[in-house]
């Protein structure tokens, strides 16, 4: 589903991502962990087509991000760590905007909004302006928007930050169901316990370079993910 080959991105003299290669297959929840400033967000933004990268290649479902960015974006959903949405819209206006962009019919969007907003207990607040939403509510709205068009790949940057325990549990369930139905998820997190329990595969990045990647068993062996991560960081 997602092929990252020798991805390199620099900011001035600093190499934020350095020769990163990763492959993510359909059905996989792939965790991406690393210290602050390791290059996780840069990688995710490069995949989402938000950032131009210097060299390497990113292919999503057979389409190159560099050559066919629109085709790639039709297949993905991206949720940033701090979802700054349109403050001048209400929640439902924002969801309708996203549905219009992806060409969803009125019936399909109504049904999906009802399902996901109901699950996240956000239905009643959809008529409120986004400006009045808390961080967690914005996060939930961004999740609903991401699931709305049934993408093939979901990219998430620290998705659990700001969510209440119930929403957090629901998100984990939704992530699992999404991948069981053939989708793929690539997400960054600092919550190693969640990554350990939820992910099929995990990649650890340090100073822009991939230091370890593979199935959870391959990466951590008999140790905890936390201890492996700390060892690699030292």
């Amino acid at each position, binding site marked *: 589903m997602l092929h990252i080959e020798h991805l390199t991105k620099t900011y001035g003299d600093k190499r934020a991502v350095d020769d990163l290669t990763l492959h993510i297959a359909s059905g996989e929840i792939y965790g991406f962990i690393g210290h602050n400033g390791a290059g996780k967000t840069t990688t995710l933004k490069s995949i989402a087509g938000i950032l131009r990268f210097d060299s390497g290649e990113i292919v999503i479902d057979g389409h190159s991000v560099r050559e066919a960015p629109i085709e790639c974006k039709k297949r993905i959903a991206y949720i940033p760590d701090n979802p700054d949405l349109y403050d001048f*819209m209400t929640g439902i206006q924002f969801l309708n905007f996203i549905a219009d*962009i992806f060409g969803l019919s009125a019936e399909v969007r109504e049904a999906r909004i009802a399902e996901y907003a109901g699950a996240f207990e956000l239905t009643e607040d*959809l008529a409120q302006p986004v400006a009045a939403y808390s961080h967690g509510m914005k996060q939930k709205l961004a999740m609903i928007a991401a699931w709305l068009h049934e993408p093939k790949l979901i990219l998430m940057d620290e998705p659990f930050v700001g969510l209440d325990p119930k929403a957090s549990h629901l998100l984990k369930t939704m992530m699992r169901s999404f991948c069981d139905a053939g989708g793929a998820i690539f997400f960054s997190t600092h919550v190693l316990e969640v990554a350990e329990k939820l992910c099929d595969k995990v990649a650890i990045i340090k100073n822009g370079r991939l230091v370890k990647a593979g199935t959870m068993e391959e990466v951590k062996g008999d140790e905890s993910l936390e201890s492996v991560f700390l060892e690699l960081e030292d």
Partner: protein
Amino acid sequence: MWKALLKKQFLELINVYFPKKKAGKKRSAGAVAGFLILFILIFLSLGGSFYAAATMLASAMLPMGLGWLYFALIGSLSVFLGVFGGVFSTYASLYLAKDNDLLLSLPIPPRRILLVRMTAVYAAGLVYSAVAWLPAVICYLQFDASVPAAVFSLLLTFVNAFLVLVLSCLLGWAVAAVSSRLRRKNIITMILSLGFLAVYFFATSRMNRMLTGLTQNAGKLGEAVRGKLWPLYQLGLAACGKALPMLCWCCLVLALSLLTYWLLSRSFIRLATANRGAKKAVYHAGQSKASGLDAALLRKELRRFLGSPVYMLNCGIGVLMILICAVMLLIKASSIRETLALLLRSAPPLVKSILPAAGVMAACALSGLAPITAPSVSLEGRSLWVLQSLPVPARSVLRAKERLHLLLVVPPIVLCCLALAFVLEADAVSCLLMLVCVTLFSALLADLGLMMNLLKPNFTWTNENVPVKQGLPVVVCIFGGWFLSLLCLGLCALISKALDARLGMAAEAVVLAALLLLLKRWLKTKGCRIFEEL
């Protein structure tokens, strides 16, 4: 702490005019110098018109020994202008900054946050009021070049800006106090601002009559001001170089400033953290309607425009003015015709023939006051990622911004143009050419605004005033529009003189169309690339 807060405010201000395009890239010295020259030119051109008005007053009042009245009147005008300049932004600057939560969470007394924000309001007021005050000082010093008059009148530039600050802050405070109790604060902000605008335009429309009246009745007016408006008398005397009135005026302004600061600081936290939207709207399913990508993007732009009083008032005022102009042309058609006939009785035929073109360019210059596209890219702000992560071509995004401009500007300007053609009794061909010219000009201005904002975007603003009111693209768009309309009129006059007025307008249309094509090509290629890489 003071230093850090002031530095933050100063950096914010610097970033408005000289935004860094990308992290890690330095601003070029040439670009900084270019912007400075542009601002100086704008200041000088505005100052020139105030100098002309000041000369008229000075020649009538100074020989009568009414220098103090001259300064009292100019002082009132400059304070009024300063307050007008800040009327749309003070509320947002003081209470709606995006760093409210951050600053309030730091160990900073809230009154200091307020004071630092007031410095930004003071700086804006200083610039606006100085545009009227300084030319008047220069004009006065040609009559009386005494050292006390020079020193005091120049010092008063800074002192009077405190009075502007007081009035602006009180207005901003009143808007905040009222809007904190309302669900739709946009409405009250709009009503207050439009009310203020109406007063402003009423005053400026009668400026000539007022100036004539003032010069004819200066003596009587002087007596009245001296008797009933003691502070203005003191201001006038102070500017003429009198020490005691200077002290009195400074004390008065200082006392008012301190009182305002005390008043505002008492309610700052409550108003800055007011929970707007007390009544909760509830969503009911079944309201969704599907639409296409272009319609969705256009609706998004329209919602942003209608959802922001700052954007609407600052960039939509031109639309309102064009509409007012169209209505006035229709209502006063016969009296305008009579006045024109009287004025043009002895004018050369060339002036008569280019009248439609001159009218069109005046309407176009008015449309320059609606630079809707100029801040539209910057207004994406921190939510730019939404568009960048969606399967939306950059061209569609830019086209939606352009279409909003055309949707709001073209219908009123076409109406105005038709009213103008009716008043001037233009023939069908001239009328058609007039319509073509205004439509092309509007499209050109929309694309110019977009281009400027793509070249100088600013996504790090803390309140919408920054891109909407103070951004370089807006300034360039307004003054560029005026400059372009003058150039077009000049071209039309040249061709009319040599050939025919209608050919002149046709040439104008050709030039505008050529420029529009060039801009469209730039937006389609480089513009789209820039947007994708923002």
